[in-house]
C-alpha cells in the first residue's frame, strides 16, 4: 500500500517505450504485466551470459512476425529457436516465392475450399504456394540425402542444410543459418515437413531417403543448456516448443532464470500452454527467484510491442555477442 497507481499520460509524439513506461506507471492488469515482460527481456538482452531461447507456437509466421524474428536472430536477441514445424514451413513458403494474404475471418470456407485456399483465422494461403514450397523442399531433401549418405540428421542439422540453400534474407531459417543460431523442431513431423519427407522418400531408391532422427536434437539442446550460465525463455503460445525449452532446463538441473510467456491459454484444463509459471516452479523448470511474468494477450500484439520497447532501450548500435 505504498505505491499508488500512477495514471497513464499519453502524448501525440510518444514512442513505444514511452507508452510502455506509462503501462509500468499504472502497473495494473495486462499493461503492468507487459511492462514487466519488457523489463525482463531487457535484462536478458543485457546479460551476456544468458542464452535467450524463443519458444514459438501458433501461427506467428503467417500472421506477420517472420521478419521480426529473422531480425532478432541477426541481432542475437534470440540465441536458440525452438519452434513448431509449421512456423518454419510458413517461413519456407515465403522463402520459395509464396505469400500469406490478408483475408477475413467471416467468409464462406466452402468457397475457399473450392478455390484451394487455406484459412488461418483471417490470413489466407493459396494451396499453390504450399505446392511450390513442397516442390522446392522435396528437391532440397533429395540433394541433402545425396550429400549426407544415410547419416541421420537432427532437426537442427536439417534446418542448417535448408538454410544454406536459401537466398531470402528475410527468412528465419536463412538468418539462423547465417547467425549460427540453432533451430529445433521437436514436433517436426506434425507439419507439412512430414508430407514433404514422405514425397522425398517415395522418389528415393530403397534405403536412400534422408534420415531425420527426432531424438538427436535432445543431446544438442541439453548441451547448449548445460553450457549456458543463465537461461532465458520467451514463449509465444506454448505447446511442444515451451515444454522442450523448460524440460531441457529441468533435465540439466538448472531451471530458467528468466521467463516471459505470452499466451491466451488458461491453466484450468491442465495443459502446458496455459500453465502458470508458478506451476512450472513446482517441477524445477523455472527457478523460484527467476525474473518471470505471464502476459495474457494475443502474442501478435504484445510481442512486437515488447521487442520495440526493448530495442528502443538498447539503442541502434546494440548487438549481442550471443550465448553460450
Amino acid at each position, binding site marked *: 500500500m505504498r505505491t499508488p497507481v500512477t495514471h497513464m499520460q499519453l502524448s501525440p509524439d510518444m514512442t513505444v517505450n514511452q507508452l510502455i513506461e506509462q503501462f509500468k506507471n499504472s502497473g495494473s492488469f495486462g499493461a503492468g504485466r507487459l511492462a514487466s515482460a519488457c523489463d525482463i527481456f531487457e535484462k536478458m538482452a543485457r546479460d551476456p551470459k544468458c542464452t535467450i531461447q524463443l519458444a514459438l507456437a501458433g501461427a506467428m509466421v503467417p500472421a506477420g512476425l517472420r521478419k521480426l524474428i529473422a531480425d532478432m536472430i541477426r541481432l542475437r536477441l534470440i540465441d536458440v529457436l525452438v519452434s513448431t514445424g509449421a512456423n518454419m514451413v510458413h517461413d519456407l513458403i515465403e522463402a520459395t516465392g509464396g505469400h500469406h494474404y490478408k483475408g477475413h475471418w467471416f467468409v464462406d470456407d466452402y468457397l475457399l475450399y473450392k478455390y*484451394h485456399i487455406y484459412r488461418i483465422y483471417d490470413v489466407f494461403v493459396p*494451396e499453390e504456394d504450399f505446392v*511450390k514450397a513442397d*516442390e522446392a523442399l522435396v528437391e532440397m531433401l533429395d540433394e541433402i540425402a545425396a550429400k549426407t549418405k544415410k547419416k541421420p540428421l537432427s532437426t537442427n542439422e536439417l534446418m542448417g542444410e535448408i538454410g544454406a540453400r536459401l537466398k531470402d534474407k528475410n527468412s528465419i531459417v536463412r538468418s539462423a543459418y547465417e547467425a549460427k543460431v540453432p533451430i529445433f523442431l521437436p514436433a517436426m513431423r506434425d507439419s507439412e515437413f512430414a508430407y514433404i519427407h514422405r514425397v522425398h522418400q*517415395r522418389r528415393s531408391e530403397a534405403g536412400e531417403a534422408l534420415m531425420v532422427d527426432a531424438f538427436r536434437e535432445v543431446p544438442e539442446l541439453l548441451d547448449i543448456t548445460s553450457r549456458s550460465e543463465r537461461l532465458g525463455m520467451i514463449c509465444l503460445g506454448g505447446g511442444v516448443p515451451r515444454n522442450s525449452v523448460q524440460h531441457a532446463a529441468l533435465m540439466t538441473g538448472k531451471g530458467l532464470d528468466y521467463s516471459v510467456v505470452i499466451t491466451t491459454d488458461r491453466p484450468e484444463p491442465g495443459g502446458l500452454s496455459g500453465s502458470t509459471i508458478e506451476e512450472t516452479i513446482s517441477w524445477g523448470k523455472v527457478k523460484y527467484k527467476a525474473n518471470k511474468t505471464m502476459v495474457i494477450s494475443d502474442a501478435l500484439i504484445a510481442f512486437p510491442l515488447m521487442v520495440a520497447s526493448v530495442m528502443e532501450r538498447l539503442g541502434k548500435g546494440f548487438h549481442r555477442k550471443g550465448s553460450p
Partner: protein
Amino acid sequence: MHMTRTSQKTGKICGNCRYHNTYDYPDSVFCFARFTERKNPVVSILFSCDEWENKLQECNCLDDYNKKPKKKAK
C-alpha cells in the same frame, strides 16, 4: 480434340483426379503422383494418365478454366 464443357466436368482429366493440386491456376495442376515418379509434375488441367482416380474435389478449377478465353490455334 474438342472437349465439351460437360465432358470436361466428368471426364478422365487431371481436373477431376484426386491427386490434383493447383499450379498456375486454373490452367495447370501439380501432380504429386508424377512428382514421386520424377516425371514433370506440372501438366495441363485437361491432361490425364493411367493413375487417374475419379474423386471430384468439388473445386472451381475446371469451371474457371472453361470461363477463360482460349487462344485460337493457328
